[in-house]
């Protein structure tokens, strides 16, 4: 089983975000980045599928600037991925999922993956499309929002999450591309041995500018802060004052005490 996993670097979740003066992207200089949460579930699933089948390879694939992306790929390698592919871009201003997917397709189309996994969306643009479009470009069968996987010979059986606590089992023929929902597993931590051995694993670098892409299908013309329309009473003061106002709200506004 040869498995590719897309892993993306995104700002840590409690980052304070500022928009650039050109209003086209966030100021990234002072931000810290981490592996997109859903991708870390996808990585763990890939590692478990490989371990269960007893053979194969897990390849971690990421696109992003040279300063922060290798760290995310190394993290995947130290958890057990066998090698990495890094599409190096000078800036990360790409928001069109179709372009992203065509770049990944160019980078991996000759790998012959049996399975491609990714998180169901990224915590930055959250288009929820890149993994699925890549599956299409690779000519694979696809499924999304997967919360359980089972390899059955030439097929992959997945449990898909539907709305409001409903689920459905779907069987796909391999090769397949599926996007992973959080909670599917408990992602592992890297062991010290894993971290040491990751240093010797290969990360192949490709330059984004040298890969073929299609024409873009959508473009981001402005990024900004949402104006707020609901009036919120902000309760301020020391803890004692806050607590007594809250009790007051419970009593006289919500009338639950």
């Amino acid at each position, binding site marked *: 089983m040869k498995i590719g996993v897309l892993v993306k670097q995104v700002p840590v979740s409690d980052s304070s975000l500022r928009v650039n003066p050109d209003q086209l992207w966030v100021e990234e200089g002072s931000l810290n980045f981490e592996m997109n949460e859903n991708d870390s579930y996808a990585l763990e699933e890939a590692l478990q599928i490989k371990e269960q089948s007893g053979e194969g390879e897990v390849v971690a694939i990421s696109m992003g600037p040279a300063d922060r992306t290798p760290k995310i790929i190394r993290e995947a390698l130290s958890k057990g991925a066998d090698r990495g592919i890094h599409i190096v871009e000078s800036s990360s201003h790409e928001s069109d999922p179709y372009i992203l997917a065509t770049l990944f397709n160019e980078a991996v189309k000759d790998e012959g993956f049996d399975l491609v996994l990714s998180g*169901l969306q990224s915590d930055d643009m959250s*288009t929820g499309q890149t993994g699925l*479009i890549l599956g299409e470009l690779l000519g694979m069968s696809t499924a999304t929002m997967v919360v359980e996987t089972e390899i059955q010979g030439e097929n992959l059986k997945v449990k898909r999450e*539907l709305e409001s606590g409903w689920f459905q*089992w*779907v069987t796909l023929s391999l090769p397949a591309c599926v996007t992973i929902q959080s909670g599917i597993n408990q992602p592992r931590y890297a062991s010290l041995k894993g971290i040491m051995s990751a240093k010797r694993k290969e990360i192949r670098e490709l330059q984004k500018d040298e890969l073929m892409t299609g024409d873009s299908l*959508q473009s981001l013309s402005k990024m900004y802060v*949402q104006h707020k329309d609901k009036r919120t009473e902000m309760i301020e003061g020391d803890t004692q004052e806050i*607590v007594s106002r809250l009790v007051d709200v419970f009593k006289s506004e919500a009338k639950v005490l």
Partner: protein
Amino acid sequence: MDILIVFEAKEGQAHRMSLEAVAAAQSMAKELNLTTAVLVMGKDAKSLAENASALDVGEVLTLEHDLLSEYSADGYTEALKQIIAQESPSYVVMGYTYQARDWVPKVSAQLTIPYISDVISVKAEGESPVFTRMVYNGKLISDITPTGGETAIVSFQAAAYPEDSVISGSAETRSVEVELGASMISTVSEPPFQEESGGVDLSGAEVIVSVGRGIGKEENIPLVEALAKSLNAEVGSSRPIVDAGWLPTFRQVGSSGQSVAPKLYLALGISGAIQHIVGMKGSKNIVAINKDAEAPIFEIADYGVVGDILEILPKLTEAIEQ
């Protein structure tokens, strides 16, 4: 037509988000002077067509085919591709449902046409629409324009356009046909099922004390349970708490979990992602405590505290018990 609205069935009737998509399409049609039509397909096509023909839309297209009676991503993709070729709409719109997540990007990829997902509003700039969507988990907003293709697909976020703003009317139906073969469908789907809830129906609760990742670690959960007890409340949670196994699945509030509307909803260390908000925004009083003043939960809270829940919770419980 200019705008084709694709309906989805839920329990045999039009999905609420399909009606919201109609509201969005009607507003787009008005601003940009466009015509609309609804497409219904699948085994519920007849009842969906009935729903749709009572709306102010140009016409209702019904598509019935054995291979579309149960949903499959491949079947729906192929069907919409053929309908787009036959009808040449400028826009195809729908709700950003879980089902739409599963198949609509495939249509975009196969036809090389733009698909703008999870849109919260549309504004007209001259002759063309600009679509607004949230980025960075609701912390920022972005304007997106389609740049290629004759047709652009757009899906709308839950409640972006309220269902009750849909304009009723009456529309004729017309049946349409596509050519599908079993070999086009590469997946085999089993019937949907609900997991044993084994638990509580939160939808009837008067007070919900809901906990998010801000609680930090499993050992702190009892702080929340103590507060809930003092308020005679049910404990709810965001998804990461359930993913980590700190609380059972039936406690999860949101698009994948339960929808609730208590008199009081206390959101503790919950950032306010849209998938959480759709499950609790109907609550009468929303009180949010979060250490990040910019957390999107404050957009919908009636009362907000910027502070540390670990510090506030024990004191709040104590004060209520007195």
